[in-house]
């Protein structure tokens, strides 16, 4: 007699291995997808922090630019979590035009680094910045650290600004996992001399 089909043990064993394989595949895919998501979030965090530092560096560096040939006070305000710079970009002798006054300030309530231009309301620039993770430090020509909120005379002495920014993104993995932390540092030499 010709045997047709599979015996019960065969079916059971094959079902067992098929289930095992499916579980492994699921776990594998899950891990891969988590990794992909993690990479995406980490990439986003790095990109956001890097762009923020890049833009800040450039805008701080041209502070005090006087397009009419008259140097301006570079810093209108300077503190550990807030800096306001100015430049006369179009050389009309004032700083009332677009992007001529730029403010970076930390918003504790929103845990966000805000950027404002002119008198416009501040806009979020970098989110996910917990307290104490955006820090500005100022140094003079002699590399002396200038601490606290700087008054006008002290602001005129500033030669170098150090920026520290740490972005802490929540981990996309639903299981408890360490947050994604990206840290960026930059040191800006102010190119324009104080008046």
């Amino acid at each position, binding site marked *: 007699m010709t045997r047709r089909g599979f015996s019960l043990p065969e079916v059971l064993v094959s079902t067992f291995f098929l289930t095992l394989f499916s579980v492994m595949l699921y776990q594998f895919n899950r891990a891969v997808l988590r990794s992909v998501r993690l990479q995406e979030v980490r990439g986003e965090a790095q990109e956001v922090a890097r762009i923020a530092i890049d833009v800040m560096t450039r805008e701080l560096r041209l502070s005090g*630019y006087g*397009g009419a*040939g008259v140097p301006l006070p570079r810093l209108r305000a300077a503190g550990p979590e807030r800096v306001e710079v100015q430049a006369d970009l179009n050389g009309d002798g004032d700083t009332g035009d677009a992007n001529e006054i730029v403010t970076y300030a930390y918003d504790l309530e929103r845990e966000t680094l805000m950027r404002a231009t002119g008198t416009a309301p501040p806009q979020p620039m970098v989110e996910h910045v917990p307290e104490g993770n955006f820090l500005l430090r100022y140094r003079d020509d002699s590399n002396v650290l200038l601490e606290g909120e700087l008054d006008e005379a002290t602001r005129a002495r500033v030669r170098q600004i150090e920026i520290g920014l740490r972005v802490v993104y929540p981990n996309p993995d639903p299981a408890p996992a360490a947050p994604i932390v990206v840290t960026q540092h930059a040191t800006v030499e102010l190119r324009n001399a104080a008046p």
Partner: protein
Amino acid sequence: MSARDRQRGSALTATLAATAVLLPLAAFAVLLTRLDFYVHDNTRAQAEVFYVAEAGLEHALADIPRGESLEQLLTGPDGYAGSADDGVFPFREGSPRSFPRAPFGYQVRVERVNSQLLRLTSVGSGARHARATVEALVAADSAPYVPAALYAPGVRAIAIGDFQISGFDRSGTDTPALPALGVDSAETASALRSNLSADASSRLVGDGGPPSVAKVDSIGLLGLIQTFGADGRVVRIDPATLPSPVQLGTTDQPQLTILVGDPTLTGSVQGAGVLVAPNGLVVEGSLAFEGLVLVGGDTTFGASSEVHVDGALWVDGVDVILAFEGRGAMISDRAAVRAADLFLPGVLPHSIVLKAWRELF
């Protein structure tokens, strides 16, 4: 049925299944890595060309001779206005083909913003067509350019008796010291230093001394003498007819004085402002002057003379001989030269200084 025919394996199926799962993952990993490389390369290229552009601008700023006029900068490397190269920055040794190596390089151009302001634009270029642009606004310094306490570009010999020449500014220690003696070439400076006696060396104090002798950026003294001579406020005096003592201007009322005829001062002369001696100068009496003394030829302070100049002494001519055999001092005083410049604006050379810097983006 052979053994081969009886095989019922599923290797091909399993391999294809595994490949189907792993291939997208591998492709994704490659894509991410490639993207990271692109981002990294572009970020690096942008940073590199920014620093190349900065190097170009710094090169240009450092290459502007002190005392150069704004107009001269605009005429390009050939120095002639109206030619095709106007607006190209006139680097003294030509614009480098690449910096620091190919494919990096910079190009610097100059354009006028207004009558008192020029714009220097440096464009840095590099790999992957990256470009960065930085610009500087430059203008004439408010203070005149003073190359040295005693500037004598064509000096052949100098003799110093009981006389001192100081590049340390009289007005204060905050002002950087100048060379006591400024000449037009390093070789001349070296030759003069080696020929000075120990006593003479000790009397030339200032930047880099003693003996403080250095090559400095040149000034067109002959043109200055001619310009002063054509000025409507000039007072021409023949030393032979001078009474003694005589006052040739004061610090409150400076005077532009030109000595004509025999340039020998025998009496007592005091003054302030600008004193021009186009035919050389000989002092046998006493001279006390505050401001700029401009001499066109050999300069002799006789053994019985007493000379005090606070400001600057500039001596024009080729192979001139300086004989300071009497007593006295020539002390750098930039405030006194500045007062002379304010009295006769637009004549003395001014250095070009940086007023503003920015990156274009």
